[in-house]
């Protein structure tokens, strides 16, 4: 017989196991509807990979794990996906969360399974992959994804199988061991194979003699598996407590069992691993105890994951009118549920339908009398009384200094408290607040980082802009300098421009902007031309009007008369100015005619040159004609384009 150690504290509540452990496991028929929460485990929620209306086979993957700390979810029965909707979760908060709702078709048709015939041939990673794919999580209660514990970073020398089932009322593991002892032993061998054949210790409380006998029989061939019977004491099924009982070693504070070379698995998880490897079945069902005085057919039921509590209660003939409280889990660590539509999940090990007075009624609690019984009972060797004060006064830092995080929330302290103080609730409150504060602090840290990064970015952008501007200014200055260096004699263009402007201004000042004679002449010419055109247009309009016998004819006649006078005045003004300037339109005309004539003679002579018999004579003629034409051009140009040359002396005289 192996030496058994003891752990500090612990309590001995009434076991209340006989109500449910007498009958064989009853397989519950497939309910009409199943609701599968996407997050049935610790870690990230799985992601649904089916759509509404899809047909799914039993065992088909319907939600895939997201990351390492997550688990797959499979359809527990065949049927159609009815909805992806929010349902009340089996959680202390009674909040709802996303679920996959399946309307079962009653055929219970399996997807094609691939059981392993020869597990010895499997490599470690094959085994791990099978366990991971099957969506196995710890079935003891916490629902920690199973494959993580099975790939420890430390060498493992002991595999502890948790078959203690220390919480009152619950007998699911007891029945499982009685009926599936061989399967459990094979499952243990699979895990041993995965962990390099560590010694296996099955820790089981002495109040389950049938299960002990069944396991001992199944394991008698295997010297590496030892069934260790331990005294009945709550909470010997706590992971750290069980390890201490079986090995005498304590898991270091804040550490995990792997730190001391131990891996601990629940017996239900082992059965699920057996199903996954040897039968190829994913985790879609579990054994759940229905017990309590309100349950007529108290016992253990094999239920599909996602079965609603109401369906199971109806099958177990629970009289809800007799039920004062419906507790999911055991009486020590479970929580009350209000809504019977809550689905059962992978870690739902018990429904306690307690009749009146079966569980202590919710009573007033009294002041702490500092009796110290809680300290005696605490299996984690904490100071519950101190923690209570700190939680109550919200001194979370001090609570942490007193190792609040090591509290396993077993409820032993509250159970022994003569003042009936709900100690565990205080600890849960303090833990929750600490977690929330930590989250807030983390968020604040992220916000600070983002704020500072943004500030940095903005100031970088600003200085980059400034830098660019400076570079541009420098480049421009350098270019200017280079230009000046290339042509040192050139005067400064800006200075030159300024000088020009100044000069112009000065000139305007001194001359007092006189009207230049050629400008005046041009203006007069324009006025005369305009009046001529107007006159022409009006007379044409008048002719039209007369032809059509229009009424406006008389008006037009008047306008024409006025215009005629105006045109005559303009012409007179122009000719008077021309006379004043010494211009003579008649002479200009004569000069123009002379030029045209000279041009004509020249052109004719040039044509003759090509065909002439005596080119020398023609050439001489051309030279003569050219000189006549040049003279004519010159005279006309002088007369036409240079009135100022004559005007200025005229004005001066």
């Amino acid at each position, binding site marked *: 017989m192996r030496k058994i150690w003891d752990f500090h504290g612990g309590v001995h509540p009434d076991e209340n196991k006989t109500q449910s452990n007498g009958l064989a496991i009853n397989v519950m028929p497939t309910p009409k509807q199943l609701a599968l929460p996407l997050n049935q485990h610790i870690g990230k929620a799985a992601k649904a990979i089916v759509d509404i209306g899809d047909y799914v086979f039993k065992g088909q993957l319907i939600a895939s794990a997201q990351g390492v700390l997550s688990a797959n979810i499979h359809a527990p029965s065949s049927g159609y996906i009815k909805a992806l909707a929010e349902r009340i979760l089996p959680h202390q908060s009674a909040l709802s969360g996303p679920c996959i709702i399946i309307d079962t078709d009653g055929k219970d048709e399996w997807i094609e399974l691939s059981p392993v015939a020869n597990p010895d041939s499997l490599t470690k990673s094959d085994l791990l992959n099978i366990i991971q794919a099957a969506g196995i999580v710890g079935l003891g209660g916490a629902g920690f994804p199973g494959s993580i514990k099975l790939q420890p970073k430390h060498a493992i020398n002991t595999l502890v199988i948790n078959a203690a089932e220390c919480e009152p009322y619950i007998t699911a593991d007891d029945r499982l061991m009685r009926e599936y002892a061989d399967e459990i032993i094979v499952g243990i061998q699979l895990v041993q194979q995965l962990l390099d054949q560590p010694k296996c210790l099955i820790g089981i409380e002495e109040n389950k003699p049938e299960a002990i006998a069944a396991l001992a029989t199944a394991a008698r061939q295997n010297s590496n598996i030892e069934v260790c019977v331990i005294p009945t004491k709550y909470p010997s099924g706590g992971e750290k407590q069980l390890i201490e009982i079986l090995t005498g070693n304590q898991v270091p504070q804040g550490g995990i069992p792997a730190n001391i070379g131990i891996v601990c698995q629940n017996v239900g998880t082992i059965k699920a691993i057996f199903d996954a490897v040897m039968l190829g079945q994913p985790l879609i069902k579990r054994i759940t105890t229905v017990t309590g005085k309100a349950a007529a057919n108290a016992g253990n039921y094999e239920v599909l994951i996602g079965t609603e509590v109401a369906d199971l209660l109806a099958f177990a003939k629970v009289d809800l009118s007799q039920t004062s409280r419906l507790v999911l889990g055991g009486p020590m660590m479970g929580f009350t549920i209000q809504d019977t539509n809550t689905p059962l999940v992978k870690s739902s090990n018990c429904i306690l339908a307690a009749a009146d007075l079966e569980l202590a009624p919710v009573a007033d609690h009294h002041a702490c009398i500092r009796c110290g019984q809680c300290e005696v009972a605490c299996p984690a060797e904490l100071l519950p009384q101190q923690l209570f004060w700190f939680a109550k006064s919200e001194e979370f830092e001090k609570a942490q200094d007193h190792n609040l995080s090591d509290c396993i929330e077993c409820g032993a302290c509250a159970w022994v408290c003569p003042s009936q103080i709900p100690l565990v*609730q205080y600890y849960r409150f303090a833990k929750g607040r600490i977690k929330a504060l930590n989250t807030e602090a983390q968020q604040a840290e992220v916000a600070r980082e983002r704020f500072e990064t943004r500030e940095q970015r903005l100031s970088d952008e600003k200085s980059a802009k400034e830098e660019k501007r400076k570079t541009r200014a420098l480049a421009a200055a350098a270019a200017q300098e280079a230009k000046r260096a290339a042509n040192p004699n050139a005067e400064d263009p800006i200075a030159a421009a300024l000088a020009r402007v100044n000069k112009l201004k000065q000139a305007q000042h001194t001359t007092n902007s006189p009207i230049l004679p050629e400008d005046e002449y041009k203006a007069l010419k324009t006025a005369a031309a305009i009046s001529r055109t107007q006159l022409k247009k009006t007379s044409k309009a008048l002719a039209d009007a007369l032809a059509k016998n229009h009424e406006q004819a008389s008006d037009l006649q008047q306008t024409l008369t006025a215009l005629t006078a105006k045109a005559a005045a303009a012409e007179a003004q122009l000719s008077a100015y021309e006379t004043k300037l010494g211009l003579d339109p008649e002479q200009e005309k004569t000069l123009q005619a002379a030029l045209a004539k000279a041009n004509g003679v020249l052109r004719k002579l040039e044509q003759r040159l090509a065909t002439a018999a005596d080119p020398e004579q023609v050439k001489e003629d051309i030279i003569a004609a050219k000189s006549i034409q040049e003279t004519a051009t010159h005279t006309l140009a002088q007369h036409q384009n240079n009135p100022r040359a004559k005007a200025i002396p005229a004005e001066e005289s």
Partner: protein
Amino acid sequence: MEILYVAVLILALLALVFGAVLGFAAIRFKVDGDPIVDQIDNLLPQTQCGQCGHPGCKPYAEAIANGEAINRCPPGGEATIKALADLLDLEVIPLDAEHGSEAIRTIAYIREDECIGCTKCIQACPVDAILGAAKQMHTVIVDECTGCDLCVEPCPVDCIDMLPVQVTPSSWHWQQPGHVIATSSLPHSHGTNDNA
């Protein structure tokens, strides 16, 4: 007389040695920055909302270090005032109502079909928690939003809502049970950790 010279000489030597040691220590163990500002900044909620009148939490931390009142941070509320009073050894004073009142934490949500993609909220967000581009729909990265409210005002189509943070099963936690008074008759939940 000789003794006097010796004494003076010894003291002068000692002064030199200690001076050198202190001088070396001052350079070798120089503390960068103003640690008190960082400590104050660590206690502020980092909402970066500017309700205190400073453009962010760090500037307010600097202002507090220079003697400004510690009760101008509504998002931090009483807890922050308490923590600051603790750190700076000051009296705990009530929140300055001029700068706002303590409210539940909210998160900005953009009604996405109404967003016109003007990028004004993106420029206003002090923690770069809004995602989007010009003429493209914008959205808030919920995990990064501090609920500072600064994006609401610039929105030309008023499509930003400040909604309370949702409680999820993972963020939910137990509340403190009722007060423990011997004669109390107040009803309260007792959990299930009772005598079975």
